[in-house]
């Protein structure tokens, strides 16, 4: 293995690692605020790629059907809960939020798709369509279970993962898709060729991470989310709605996932069920950060990317096995250094 190959593998590893880092951040964020171990995050990555791929072909993407369906279900649930609690006056506002808004996004994407807008607009549409699914999923599945144990929420997440995979097959079909790169240029840095695409991926990941940092450090909503993460009851007492926090968190996390999908599309062919393994790699990164630390999770994800890239060179058949086995030494180290567990939940 000479320097050129090493550099190439490192570049691949860092590019993938940057994408896993976005996912790891989304996973830590969701876990911290809602205690949901968000296994289905990978499906939104796949949806992101496949939606963009659909728009590329000038077709209305499969996401639209899903969005319409979930908006109707969410509307029905809201209507039911308003009537059951005698809050009929709140209904129009809630329907506007949970049904009309997602339907408007679906309509917009459906209308613009055949017009083949510029690439940047296509990306924005794809992100909007997929991101709108996040809060709907929270409203339909997780909000009624907000008080359940982490264990129940985890099993629910796995169930959601299964359902979304099957729905992905229904809405997007079994064929894989790739999306065009943002840029096909490359530079020479000494002996090494660096593609502009890789630089763009790493830069946009960094930018998003900084944006998150700013959001949580400086804005009121960000601080409210952090407060909810630390103490749900306490947050409620000072007027932060846990439902709002949950929906907001899911929007943000889904956006991160969909964006990862847009970034990963030019690198690898994505199928309806590709997301699971991608999200699990994000999880390995997140576990390295103890499901709690954002910077450690990002570093862990980068490590996963590098390990994957180098093991695909040395032992490509065992690439995934090696990546997932990485959590064994990590857990071993954590368990040997961890203090005695204090009370759970």
């Amino acid at each position, binding site marked *: 293995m000479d320097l050129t190959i090493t550099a190439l593998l490192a570049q691949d590893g860092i590019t993938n690692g940057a994408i896993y880092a976005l996912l790891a951040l989304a996973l830590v964020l969701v876990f911290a605020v809602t205690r949901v171990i968000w296994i289905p995050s990978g499906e939104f990555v796949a949806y992101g790629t496949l939606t963009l791929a659909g728009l590329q072909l000038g077709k209305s993407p499969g996401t639209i059907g899903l969005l319409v369906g979930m908006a109707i279900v969410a509307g029905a649930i809201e209507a039911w809960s308003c009537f059951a609690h005698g809050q009929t006056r709140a209904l129009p506002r809630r329907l506007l939020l949970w049904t009309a808004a997602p339907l408007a996004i679906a309509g917009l994407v459906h209308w613009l798709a055949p017009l083949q807008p510029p690439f940047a607009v296509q990306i924005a549409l794809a992100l909007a369509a997929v991101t709108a699914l996040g809060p709907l999923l929270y409203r339909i599945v997780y909000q009624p279970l907000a008080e359940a*144990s982490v264990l129940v929420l985890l*099993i629910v997440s*796995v169930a959601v993962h299964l359902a979304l995979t*099957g729905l992905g097959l229904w809405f997007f079909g079994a064929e894989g898709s790739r999306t065009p790169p943002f840029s096909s240029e490359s530079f020479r840095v000494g002996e090494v060729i660096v593609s502009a695409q890789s630089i763009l991926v790493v830069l946009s990941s960094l930018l998003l991470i900084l944006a998150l940092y700013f959001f949580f450090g400086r804005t009121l909503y960000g601080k409210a989310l952090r407060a909810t993460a630390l103490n749900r009851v306490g947050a409620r007492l000072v007027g932060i709605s846990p439902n709002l926090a949950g929906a907001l968190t899911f929007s943000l996390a889904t956006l991160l996932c969909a964006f990862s999908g847009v970034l990963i599309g030019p690198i690898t062919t994505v199928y309806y069920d590709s997301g699971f393994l991608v999200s699990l790699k994000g999880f390995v990164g997140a576990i390295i950060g103890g499901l709690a630390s954002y910077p450690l999770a990002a570093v862990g994800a980068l490590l996963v990317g590098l390990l994957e890239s180098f093991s695909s060179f040395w032992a490509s058949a*065992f690439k995934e096995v090696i990546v*997932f086995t990485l959590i064994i030494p990590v857990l071993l180290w954590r368990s040997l250094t961890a203090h005695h567990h204090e009370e759970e939940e």
Partner: protein
Amino acid sequence: MKALARVSMGPAAFAAIVVLLAIVPLTMPPFWVTLGNYIGLYSIVALGLVLLTGVAGQTSFGQAAFVGLGAYTTAYLTTRYGTSPWLTLPIGLVITFAVALFLGFITLRMRGHYLPLATIAWGISLSLLFGNLDFLGGHTGLTGIPPLALPGFELKSERHFYYLIWAIALCALWASSNLLDSRPGRAIRALKGGLEMVEAFGVDAARLKIVVFVYAGLLACVSGWLYAHLQRFVNPSPFGIHQGIEYLFMAVVGGAGSVWGAVVGATLITLLKQWLQDLLPHILGRAGNFEIVVFGVLMVLLLQRAREGVWPWLERLLPKRASPPVPDAPALPVRRKTAGEGARLEVDAARKQFGGLVAVNDLSFEIRPGEILGLIGPNGAGKTTMFNLISGALRLTAGDVRFCGASIGGRQPYEIARLGIGRTFQHVKLIGSMSVLDNVALGAYLRSEAGVLRAALKLDRAEEARIKAEAARQIARCRLDAHTFDAAGSLALGRQRIVEIARALAADPLLLLLDEPAAGLRYLEKQELAALLRSVRADGMTILLVDHDMDFVMGLTDRLVVMGFGEKLAEGLPAEIQKNPVVLEAYLGGIE
């Protein structure tokens, strides 16, 4: 809620099930026998998950990988080396034991939900490994596995195999339901009540969770061994992560709190899958595993609406059995209460800081053998923090606590419990779905020793009778006999506090720590409690009492320690404390 989840069903219902199972191969067409075989195999795996998920509150998505471990071990050894299948079973079990122990060790001693995540990684890795290792046949797998054979008889037909599978499944059900109704089983069921509670009775919670995980893994391995010899070939696909998820669904659908839930869940999921795989391609006009959408949505609805699964509904249809009275049995070993000279407990400059807040500030006091010491003080004085420092629930920042002369500062709660310190909780920690008898019997955990194996094989009955009798005695002593078989959660809060005292007494401690035992009691009940505690003292037990109720404390205690803002304000006889100006100021804000 008075109805109790019974862990076993009556002999009549059990016999009916056995007969029903036995006639399936005699009367049904081959298709149903095959289905019956699979349901049996799945039930064995789901049973392990019922114990792990429904009872111990942990979970695994990697059970399919353990099934694969059992299947591939026997497949490889029998085809490559011609090893007897009867030998490959123990070999597979040993391998599974080692893997499960290792996975459990690195995940279950930590807070949080690392086991399920680790089992997802393990489940994916192992099936990928099976598919990529040439000596295991890669993705095509291994063929030509010999049938199971007894001397002069080969189990080649599915009908014969059916009896073997179900004999093993029923044995596993029997052993598991024995286990749940035993000393270790009570501790496993109590894990849901929080680690702090079980550890206060000497249970090493992390170790117990690992034991349950290993047990579940071993059951899965047996199922895999059977599968390999039923199919006579193996390939990686049935051991992947999605099958692992399906096993968990079986346990949840059936009802993760009862061993029979495993069979019900395995049956329902298997039949539903069969039906959906026929139906959905017709409706949708496309092939594909769309049944996972239905499964996914079904699971979400079930967990939102009926988290207990299907079994509790079926159980209501079974005839109710009255609980038999607890038979008398010889007493459990009792500790000697007259242990030597000096203080029973010495608190020596104990200090606890939470960040910048000093909750307990270099506090020192001692408790003498056979006395009732009251620890009082206004709200926020640090009483409960001090209490938790003694019981080991919190760690000292500085200073020391000595029990019978030996330092216990920095020890784990279950080690402290072993030395002879019993406690109750300020916020009642009982297992609401367990009977008062079982809750109190948990207290006697340290006075008995039956392990998982003895319990599963029902060899623990003599000791179990002594535990139950002891629990019944403590219940009677606390005047709760009318509620012996009621669900603990159905009692009024004040009564539940008394159940906690009975549970602590069942541990036969040298020192009893009571955190606000009188809260929520009515006047007469308080008097009864005071009489009970006096009789406990007369038996030689030492008591530390934390409470707010001045009348109760003044009338009962021998001496008092008064705390304020983490420091000791005063110490002395109740009559002295009542006149102490510093105490009066702390309580009443001073008289200007």
